[in-house]
């Protein structure tokens, strides 16, 4: 039983972080129909920026973190304005290639500045182990979990009730009709990219804080987002959250209950993914294309 609780808590923290990264991905896809292969690299850039501000420039961490988020917002806007906007109206495959290119560029820039070896990240969250119902879990993971939950809640609220959130969803549904409401589609795209980059940067800092600062590992985290969003539905915020938790838990349970030599942990999530897609082809919460007859 202890083991089960231990695994559940670990899985939930992993899943929550996955959900956070997936959220950024969903945001961009929802608003502008772009599949952003550079999402993981936003994570990496965020973590390295935080490292630069906090360790290399010696800024105290709350302010360092805010600066990181601000820099990520700027990065998001720059990427949208100069890389994605000229691609509006181009075939979807070209847009995807551009985001893959962006991913390589970001990776190269980071390794040119900070090198490729891993570094210790300043642990600003306390990692004292806590004992919860017999399971031992470091405090930083629980704080990360709580932080992610709060953020996710804020997003749900944003999309349901705020004027800008509704405008973003309206744009995702029908760009021209949104334009006829007086909604500026350009600023909606810029907003999607900047929020997404900021969320990714925050996720990057959390991951780096728990593991270490390592470019390749952080960027690779972005790839793990794909099963999550496909499972939850590419355009669904609740789907991203639930998908993240499911994949996170599945990975940890498989790793915990099967022999590591089988290497099942990274396979089982995909098997479940296929099974779910057979029943629900748009993912658990994906928006079904509504056809009126």
């Amino acid at each position, binding site marked *: 039983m202890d083991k089960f609780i231990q695994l559940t808590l670990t899985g939930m923290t992993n899943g929550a972080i996955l959900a956070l990264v997936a959220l950024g991905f969903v945001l961009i896809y929802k608003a502008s129909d772009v599949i952003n292969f550079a999402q993981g690299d936003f994570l990496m850039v965020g973590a390295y920026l935080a490292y630069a501000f906090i360790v290399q420039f010696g800024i105290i961490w709350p302010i360092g973190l805010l600066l990181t988020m601000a820099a990520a917002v700027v990065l998001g806007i720059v990427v949208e304005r100069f890389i994605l906007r000229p691609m509006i109206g181009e075939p979807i495959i070209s847009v995807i290639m551009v985001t893959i290119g962006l991913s390589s560029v970001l990776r190269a820039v980071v390794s040119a500045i900070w090198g490729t070896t891993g570094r210790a990240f300043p642990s600003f969250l306390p990692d004292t182990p806590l004992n919860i119902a017999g399971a031992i879990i470091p405090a930083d993971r629980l704080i990360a979990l709580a932080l992610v939950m709060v953020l996710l809640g804020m997003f749900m609220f944003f999309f349901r009730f705020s*004027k800008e959130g*509704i*405008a973003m*969803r*309206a744009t*995702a*549904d*029908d*760009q*021209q*009709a*949104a*334009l*006829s*409401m*007086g*909604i*500026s589609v350009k600023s909606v795209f810029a907003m999607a990219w900047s929020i997404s980059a900021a969320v990714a940067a925050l996720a990057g800092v959390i991951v780096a804080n728990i593991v270490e600062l390592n470019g390749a590992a952080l960027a690779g985290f972005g790839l793990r987002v794909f099963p999550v969003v496909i499972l939850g539905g590419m355009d669904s915020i609740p789907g991203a959250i639930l998908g993240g938790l499911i994949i996170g838990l599945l990975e940890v349970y498989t790793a915990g209950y099967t022999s590591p030599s089988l290497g099942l942990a990274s396979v089982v999530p995909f098997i479940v993914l296929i099974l779910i897609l057979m029943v629900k082809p748009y993912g658990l919460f994906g*928006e079904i294309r*509504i056809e*009126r007859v």
Partner: protein
Amino acid sequence: MLSLNNIEVIYNDVILVLKGMSLEVPQGKIVALLGSNGAGKSTTLKAVSGLLKPEDGEVTDGSITFEGEDIHHLDAADIVRRGIFQVMEGRRVFEHLDVEQNLLAGSYTRSDRGQIKADIEAVYTYFPRLKERRRQESGYLSGGEQQMLAIGRAMMAKPKLIMLDEPSLGLAPLLVRDIFDIITRINKEQGTTILLVEQNARLALDAADYAYIMENGRIVLAGDPQQLKDNADVREFYLGLNEVGTRKSYRDVKHYKRRKRWLS
């Protein structure tokens, strides 16, 4: 209030769609713009509302003025802020948003946030059906309900001028009656000026205070609705009324000539 002066619209730098189109919409009236498929009715509306750009269209000549100010260089958002709202052809509701969120999207450009709740209720008094379905995803509404939502959404922006592009498209005749009744009510009760594009000439002429008929990118006939209803060409080509009993043979020849003159 709105006046189009000799405007010319070109798509993709080559296709000339409007060729010297002029039109006048006076304050507080309902003006109908009739014409067959491809005459340029929708293009005219898009030229006014600034929605040509995403379709690679461009106003290359002439002027569009609204309340005395030139608006044809403004972008769509500014034009909505000035008080012109286009209800696009084919309803175009935001399918994955519920009814109330669609209405909120319509109020996007408003700055008096406090008023909005009351305005949503006001829309519901015109369309009680929408109130019953306020929490339903609008993609699942019936065609008539979607058209009601599209008009309600326009009301939420508190525009001075609503431009309706074929509100009768694809709706049952009984529903079309309802929609037109509500359009005239909005005009009378809210004082909103309306520019109505329609293929259903009979209904549009009944509702309008003044009507234009366009063919091939320009206005070919204008007048008050009664005058147009009495015009022989309009009766034949738009209302489908023929003189019964006349012999076919010679009439067909004349018909061809008249039709040709009409279209060129």
